[in-house]
């Protein structure tokens, strides 16, 4: 068996440390040789019940159990200033430069609710098909932690802005949204002197992030598989980007996922013990982390043990989860209405205006593409993935180009160009007019597909009309039969050896001749016609 990373997994209360190797197949196997390499004392603070002696496979676990997954997502709203003060929300500023007495919670300061936050949050809640609470309020969530300047977080408790919503995944399944509420972010702590919190000698706090507006989107536990968890996250990000609420950049932390996962025996109603997963910073890792947890919890359950309720951190390096903290008792946040912020009163017409101003959402787009434009589900998903691409697609189709042709161009050459340069379509000069022209020029055989592929980068960089490029550079397709015939004759003559071979039965050489003709014309020869003529001329023996 190939061995992957060295991974330390700790046993439950007895706290005897056993080393394991983790393979790239996520199977955990006991390794007897590595014992002396470990330093149990150093890691003594960690304890959990994640030390299965023989690990089961995922299939094994899923035979008996099903996963119940709920996801909490924090999305940073794309406002210019923070939730309660005028500090900028820009990412990457020097530590503690985007701060003021208000977001540092200095004595005597009062929070001033940014109206843009309510606007954007309502927009998000509407997009998630939530019931909007017209009368809502902010609450205080009290807990002591140094990254929370006031030692309470202004959030929403019993009257969230939106509840009972749902989103439709590309697969067609609906995932219900439990609630959507506004809150403020906390600061960032940098532990110094050790790689983890425990053992560090001192801690730096950066309050730039403190007070940045967030919405928390809590799903119902409707998600049943790791891939669906990732799909949910992606769809949520798509929606948020569509409606301009957030750029949902997981690396910059403008979108953060916490996954709650428990296993329950198939056929049973009662939910199992919930484990919360944090620190997952890509959708790819969402499914990996959930996979790992299903195996870990399943192995425990199949051994007759029970997972404990805890918060676990996803470790990207070891591709596994580790205990972060164990919740002994439910913490009491002592919520009460925030007395410094008057209740928020939304009017129905405001909500309606937001609803009217909303872009068509990805789910609707996908449905329309499949039903009206006849795209395959796969193509529809790809095109609807990004709003700018979808807009280009629709505009081009509106100019009378066959949808399937547009999809092919977008999904192959255009996406390749964009991905290579890591840019968005809006950063190029390509517009629907040019794209439609390009495709129609291929259709009426003015240019060949190969030439078109060469023209595309020019279009995207410079943006002038396709016709002018074609004329300027003399790229029209060679469709004149006589001219082409002459050209082919010339080519054939210069390769007498190959002609002989062809005649003796090596018909595969046809492609060689066509290639040579193409080469000599700079790709302008009409490929179908060339093929036909070469065949004719070779068999007719000139």
């Amino acid at each position, binding site marked *: 068996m190939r061995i992957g990373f060295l991974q330390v997994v700790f046993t439950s209360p007895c706290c005897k440390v056993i080393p394991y190797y983790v393979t790239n197949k996520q199977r955990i196997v006991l390794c007897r040789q590595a014992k002396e390499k470990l330093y149990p004392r150093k890691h003594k603070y960690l304890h959990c019940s994640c030390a299965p002696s023989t690990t089961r496979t995922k299939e094994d676990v899923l035979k008996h159990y099903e996963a119940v997954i709920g996801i909490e997502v924090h999305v940073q709203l794309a406002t210019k200033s923070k939730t309660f003060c005028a500090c900028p929300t820009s990412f990457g500023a020097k530590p503690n430069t985007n701060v003021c*007495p208000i977001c*540092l*919670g*200095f*004595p*005597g*300061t*009062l*929070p*001033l*609710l940014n109206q843009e936050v309510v606007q954007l949050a309502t927009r998000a809640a509407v997009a998630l098909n939530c019931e909007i609470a017209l009368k809502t309020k902010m609450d*205080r969530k*009290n807990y*002591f932690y*140094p990254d929370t*300047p*006031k*030692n*309470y977080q202004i959030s929403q408790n019993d009257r969230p802005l939106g509840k009972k919503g749902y989103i439709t995944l590309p697969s067609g399944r609906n995932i219900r949204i439990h609630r959507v509420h506004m809150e403020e972010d906390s600061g960032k702590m940098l532990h110094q002197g050790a790689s983890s919190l425990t053992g560090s000698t001192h*801690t730096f*706090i950066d309050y730039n992030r403190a007070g940045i507006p967030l919405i928390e989107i809590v799903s119902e536990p409707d998600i049943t598989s790791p891939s669906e968890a990732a799909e949910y996250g992606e769809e949520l990000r798509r929606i948020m980007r569509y409606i301009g609420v957030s750029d949902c950049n997981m690396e910059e932390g403008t979108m953060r996922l916490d996954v709650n996962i428990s296993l329950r025996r198939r056929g049973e109603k009662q939910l199992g013990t919930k484990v919360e997963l944090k620190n997952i910073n890509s959708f790819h890792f969402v499914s990996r982390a959930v996979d790992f947890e299903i195996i870990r919890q399943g192995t425990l359950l199949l051994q007759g043990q029970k997972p404990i309720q805890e918060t676990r951190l996803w470790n990207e390096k070891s591709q596994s989860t580790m205990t972060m903290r164990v919740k002994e008792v439910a913490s*009491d946040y*002592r*919520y*009460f209405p925030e*007395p*410094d*912020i*008057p209740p928020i009163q939304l009017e129905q017409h405001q909500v309606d205006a937001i609803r009217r101003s909303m872009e068509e959402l990805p789910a609707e787009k996908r449905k329309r593409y499949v039903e009206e434009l006849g795209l395959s589900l796969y193509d529809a998903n790809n095109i609807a993935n990004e709003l700018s691409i979808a807009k280009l697609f629709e505009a081009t189709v509106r100019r009378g180009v066959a949808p399937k042709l547009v999809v092919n161009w977008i999904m192959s050459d255009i996406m390749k160009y964009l991905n290579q340069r890591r840019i968005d379509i809006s950063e190029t000069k390509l517009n629907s007019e040019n794209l439609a022209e390009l495709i129609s020029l291929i259709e009426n055989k003015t240019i060949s597909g190969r030439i078109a592929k060469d023209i595309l980068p020019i279009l995207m960089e410079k943006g002038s009309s396709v016709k002018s490029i074609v004329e300027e550079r003399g790229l029209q397709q060679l469709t004149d039969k006589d001219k082409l015939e002459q050209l082919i004759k010339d080519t054939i003559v210069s390769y007498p050896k190959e002609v002989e071979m062809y005649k003796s039965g090596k018909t595969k050489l046809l492609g060689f001749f066509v290639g040579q003709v193409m080469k000599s014309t700079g790709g302008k020869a009409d490929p179908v016609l060339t093929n036909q003529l070469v065949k004719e001329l070779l068999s007719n023996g000139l």
Partner: protein
Amino acid sequence: MFWRSSCAFFSCPTCRPTWRRNWKRPKRTTRTRILSQHTVHISTVIKRQLADVDNSSVLAIAENFKRGEWKAVDIVMEYLQRIHEMDKVLSAFLSVDAERALYKAQLLDEKWDKGEHLGPLAAVPVAIKDNLCTKGMVTTAGSKMLETFVPAYDATSVARLEAAGAIILGKTNMDEFGMGSSTELSGFHPSKNPWDPSRVCGGSSGGSAGAVSSGMAPFALGSDTGGSIRQPASFCGISGLKPTYGRVSRFGLIAFSSSLDTVGPMACSVAELATIFQILAGRDPMDPTSWSEAAPYSDILHRKGALDLKDVKLGVVDIFSSSLEENQVNDVMRCFLDSIRVFTKLNAQVVSISLPYLEEALAAYYVIAPSEASSNLARFDGVRFGSRQEASHISELYQKSRGLGMGAEVKRRMITGTFALSSGYYDAYYRKALRVRQCIIGQFEDLFRQVDVILCPTTPCAAFELGERMGGDPVKMYREDVLTIPPSLAGLPALSIPMGFDANQLPLGLQLIGNRQGEDLLFRVGHAFQMATDWHRQRPPIYRQYVQSSVTKSSS
């Protein structure tokens, strides 16, 4: 920055007493040299003129300054000297920034010389309660926790006063974070009542009340959560206004209970309060709970017929049924009945009403206020500002910093509040208290359909002795607020004005409760009362002694 230890006035250029041990003598700048030369020739005329009660009112000072009779520096010097002389006994101030005050005064004098525009409070010295943030001056809220805290911003109320030309003398003592009714619970030292230094001056704005009453400042800013302006005003024989909640910006007020806190003025007479209130009131973009309507306060006191109260219906609270303490009832009742008689003479209609939920209001207050305080005071953890103890772990830092920085009463209320908000108790305490609050608001709404202003004594008794209510049952101290809490819970404006003296020559206060945003009517009724009486013109013995000794000294 000048931090007082035993004497509030160690930076006075005329006398340089013992400096605080580890305090560095400031560099002698040109400014201080000019000032110290100037003060040699301090005007004895001003001293004598200011000794007169009428001349030392806010309005008179501003007027005399604007007319060019008095120099701002001289006015400030006189008040600094009063603080120097009297605060030794009264301990009303926590810090006095003489240099800053004199500098501001000098600027005003220069402004006057140039003929520039002067604000309505030009050259009027003011004492600020220490829970109102003052830019560049230590603001402690009476707590050791904030012993070294220097805010980088002014409270809106302070900024408005300074913009109107007022000169800040210093910061006055208070119960720690406003939690107390005697100023004995200050984290630093208790303040004493000018009428009898063996007694308390009330609280929590006790320092402000003492400073105004003894003439150490013509007026002061206080804050009122459950009676913290009115009760000390009553104990010290001055007038104090708790405005409608939201009428004066709370920005810069170190929060005790956000839904109850108000900032208000304290002065000798209602006419002065009206002038100051005009400057303080109004919408503040920094306080989202401030009223969006502007304060359309017209100069109601000088309107024709303002002193005739024939169109005003007064509701007199039937205090016989409420639980006042037996031995004090006689004096309070006598004065109360006397003042009602004054109002009848002023042609006001008087009807008897009752406040049935007094006990419930007290209980609700002592659930709501500590609950909010437990959350508001969580930010004092030693991480970002304030005093910080050495610790090896974050929870140790919290425990040590908060444990050593905060007093017993603050801890008691925070524990009470934390308990009341805990899950499982929230409904039984906090939610129930909010329901009581709604009841009280409804009750006042009913009452104000029948009457225009409600009258009752401010406190059930006169100032008590220092230490009398310390230790033992804290509820005894809480009961002090039984008559001031209902309007606080309802967010209504209330005025406390002197209404006489008890057998020990201690002042007693009369509380006038107005309808929402009804400050102007309160001023009119209060002013009419003061025009008909002279209780507000009485000065405590310590002031009379000072005037006598200093005037004779300066003339000899």
